[in-house]
C-alpha cells in the first residue's frame, strides 16, 4: 500500500479521501489555491502544498503545478477525486510518466469512455443499447439542425467532452436550437476546453439510473448495484438513492450485466459509473455515458453495500485484487443523499457565496455528513457551490425518508443561503414519497409545490427571538442605577483583588 498520497482536489471530496488515507495509514497531502489556504481540506491533511491563485485554471487544473507538488513532498500516488482533473487523460498520463501512480483507470480507458461519442461506440460494440443520436461530434450548426429534424424534437445537445450538466441543453423546438447551440458551445469550451457537441433524441420522462462498477488489474470487473439519480436540476443531480425505488433483482441483474460488459471491454480498473436512461413505461434502458472516477453520490452505495469505495480505489491502484467477488455484494436497506448547495432556492437557485456564520449539522442514527466546510468557512465564488452532502440510511425507503426529514430539521446553516429548505419540501412531496421519479421531477415539483405556512405561534416566537436579538445587539445598553449589578461574587472579588494589587505597586 502507498505511504503518501496527494489529493488533487478540494472541498468535501478531498476531506472524504483524506479520511480514507487516515484509515489506511497513508499520509495525506492536500493541494490548495491561495483562496483555500484556510479551508477544511487543508486543515484535515497531514501536509499541504499551494498550487496557485484562486482561479482553478491556474491552480487545481494546473497539471504541472499539481505534479510538481506531488514530487516535492515525495507522494507516490495522486487521487484526483471528482471534477477538476479526474477525467483528464492527459493528466493521468502525465502522472504516470512522472513515475507516480494515478488512482483511477488507465489513460486509454479514460480516453475511450471520456469522450461521449467514442463511449457510445464502445457500448454498441458491447451489445448495450444507446439512445438514438449522432455517433460523431457535430460539425456545424447546420448539421445540428438537420439531425434534430431527422430525430424529431425534443432533442438534447451535449458537450462531447462533458459531464456535470455543463454544455448540455434540452431543445424542444427548432426556434430554440440556435441559441441553445451557441450557449452549449460556449459553456463546453469554458468548462472542458473543447466546444464539440453532439445531439441525441430526448427520451420522455426518463429515469436516470447508474451502475457502480469496480475493476482491478487482475481482470475482475464487479458491479455494486444501481443508484437512482433522476432528481436533477439543470442536468445536475441533487438527490440520489440506492437502491432505485423501482429496483427489482431482474432489472439490477440486466443493468449490472450491461455495465460490467462495458467495463470489461475497456479493461477498466478502479471505480467507474455507467449511466443509463431508463424508460419508466417500458423498463428499457439505454447507455448514456460513463464516468471514469469516483462519483459525488458514492456514499449511498457505501451505506447500502457496506464497502468503502475510496479504500477499494487505493487497493486496486496499489495492484491488489478487489476485496470482494460478485457473490460478496449484498444490498441492505435504503440510502438517500442530498447535495447541499450554497444556492438560494427562493431565487432560482442562484449561487449564494459568503461566510458561514453558524453551522449545526445533524447526527444520530443513520446519518452521514460529508462536508467541506465548518463554522466560519468562506464559500467562494471561484468554485462549485456544493458545500456538503447529507446521506441517510434506513432499513426501508420509508424509514430513510423519515430520517431525512429529521436530519434536515436538525441541519442549521447561517450566513449563506442553502438548498436545505428545498430538500425539506421535497421530503414531504407525495410523488417523491411514492418514488415516482424521472428527470422532469423538479420542474413538475416547482409547478405543484405549495408553501405550507408555519403555525402562527411559531412565526410569532421567531419574531420574538429576532426582537430579543435586536435589543441585545443593535442598541447601546443604557443602565440606570449603577449600584445595581448582576456581576457574580467571583468577579467582584477579582476586581477588588485587582485594585489591591494596583494600589500596592
Amino acid at each position, binding site marked *: 500500500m502507498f505511504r503518501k498520497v496527494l489529493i488533487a482536489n478540494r472541498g468535501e471530496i478531498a476531506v472524504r479521501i483524506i479520511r480514507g488515507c487516515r484509515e489506511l495509514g497513508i499520509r495525506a497531502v492536500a493541494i490548495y489555491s491561495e483562496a483555500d489556504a484556510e479551508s477544511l481540506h487543508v486543515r484535515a491533511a497531514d501536509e499541504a502544498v499551494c498550487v496557485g491563485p484562486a482561479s482553478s485554471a491556474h491552480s487545481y487544473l494546473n497539471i504541472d503545478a499539481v505534479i510538481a507538488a506531488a514530487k516535492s513532498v515525495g507522494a507516490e500516488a495522486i487521487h484526483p477525486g471528482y471534477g477538476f482533473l479526474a477525467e483528464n487523460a492527459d493528466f493521468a498520463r502525465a502522472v504516470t510518466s512522472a513515475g507516480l501512480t494515478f488512482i483511477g483507470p488507465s489513460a486509454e480507458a479514460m480516453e475511450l469512455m471520456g469522450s461521449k461519442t467514442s463511449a457510445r461506440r464502445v457500448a454498441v460494440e458491447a451489445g448495450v443499447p444507446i439512445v438514438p443520436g449522432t455517433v460523431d461530434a457535430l460539425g456545424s450548426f447546420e448539421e445540428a439542425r438537420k439531425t434534430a429534424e431527422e430525430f424529431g424534437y425534443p432533442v438534447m445537445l451535449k458537450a462531447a467532452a462533458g459531464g456535470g450538466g455543463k454544455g448540455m441543453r434540452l431543445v424542444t423546438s427548432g426556434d430554440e436550437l440556435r441559441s441553445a447551440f451557441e450557449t452549449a458551445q460556449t459553456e463546453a469550451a469554458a468548462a472542458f476546453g473543447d466546444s464539440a457537441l453532439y445531439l441525441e433524441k430526448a427520451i420522455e420522462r426518463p429515469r436516470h439510473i447508474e451502475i457502480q462498477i469496480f475493476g482491478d488489474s487482475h481482470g475482475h470487473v464487479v458491479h455494486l448495484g444501481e443508484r437512482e439519480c433522476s432528481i436533477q436540476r439543470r442536468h445536475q443531480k441533487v438527490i440520489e438513492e440506492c437502491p432505485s425505488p423501482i429496483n427489482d433483482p431482474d432489472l439490477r441483474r440486466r443493468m449490472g450485466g450491461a455495465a460490467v460488459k462495458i467495463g470489461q471491454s475497456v479493461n477498466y480498473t478502479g471505480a467507474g459509473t455507467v449511466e443509463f436512461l431508463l424508460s419508466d413505461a417500458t423498463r428499457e434502458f439505454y447507455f448514456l455515458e460513463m464516468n471514469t472516477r469516483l462519483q459525488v453520490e458514492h456514499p449511498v452505495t457505501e451505506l447500502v453495500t457496506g464497502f468503502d469505495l475510496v479504500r477499494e480505489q487505493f487497493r486496486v491502484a496499489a495492484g491488489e485484487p478487489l476485496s470482494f467477488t460478485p457473490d460478496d455484494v449484498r444490498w441492505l436497506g435504503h440510502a438517500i443523499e442530498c447535495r447541499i448547495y450554497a444556492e438560494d432556492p427562493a431565487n432560482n437557485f442562484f449561487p449564494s457565496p459568503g461566510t458561514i456564520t453558524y453551522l449545526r449539522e445533524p447526527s444520530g442514527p443513520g446519518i452521514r455528513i460529508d462536508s467541506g466546510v465548518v463554522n466560519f468557512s468562506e464559500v467562494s465564488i471561484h468554485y462549485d457551490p456544493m458545500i456538503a452532502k447529507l446521506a441517510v440510511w434506513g432499513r426501508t425507503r420509508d424509514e430513510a425518508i423519515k430520517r431525512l426529514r429529521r436530519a434536515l*430539521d436538525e441541519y442549521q446553516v447561517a450566513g449563506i443561503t442553502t438548498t436545505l429548505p428545498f430538500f425539506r419540501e421535497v421530503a414531504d412531496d407525495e410523488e417523491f414519497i411514492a418514488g415516482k421519479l424521472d428527470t422532469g421531477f423538479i420542474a413538475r415539483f416547482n409547478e405543484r409545490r405549495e408553501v405550507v405556512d408555519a403555525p402562527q405561534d411559531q412565526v*410569532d416566537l421567531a*419574531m420574538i427571538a429576532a*426582537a430579543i436579538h*435586536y435589543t441585545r445587539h443593535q442598541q447601546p445598553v443604557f443602565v440606570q442605577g449603577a449600584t445595581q449589578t448582576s456581576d457574580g461574587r467571583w468577579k467582584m472579588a477579582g476586581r477588588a483583588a485587582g485594585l489591591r494589587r494596583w494600589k500596592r505597586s
Partner: protein
Amino acid sequence: MKLKAIIGEQEHDLDVRIDGGRVRAEIDGRVYDLELREPEPGSYLFLRGSEVHDCQVNKAHEGFNVSLHGRNYAITIVDPKRLRSGQDTHGHQHGLAEITAPMPGKVVKVQLERGATVEKGSGIIVVEAMKMQNEMKSPRAGVVVSINVKPGDRVNAGDVLAVVE
C-alpha cells in the same frame, strides 16, 4: 419595548418585555409568556409552559435569519423610535421591473436591445457566475426600456442590469 417586525410583506407590532429569565410578548394582540435561556450566542431557548422552542438567530443581509423547528424566517426588526422622517421614499414605481444581478458575475451575452418587446419569462441577459451561465429573465411582459451592461462587464450583486416597463 415596542418594535415592528417585518416578515415577508407583513408588518407586525411587537411589544417585548424581558425581565430576567422571563419574556412577556404581545404580537398583534396575541400574548406570550415565556421562560428564556440563552445557551450560546444567538441562541434563544424558549419554554412556553413545557413546550421547547429552540431559536437560532443570525444576522442576514437585511435583518435576521431565525431558524426554528426546521424552518427559516427572514425577519427585519425596526425600532419606530429610531425612525426619522424621510422614510418610505421607495414608493412602488408601478409598471417598472428591474432585472438585478443576484450575485457577482460576468455578463456573457445581451440577448435583447433597448426597445425590444418581451414576454414574461423571456431571457434578456446571460450572466456567468460560478461557472454556470444563468439567463436573467423578464419578470413580466413589456418593453425593455434600458440595458445597462454589455458583454464582458463584471457585475455585482444588486446591480441593475436592465429595466422592463
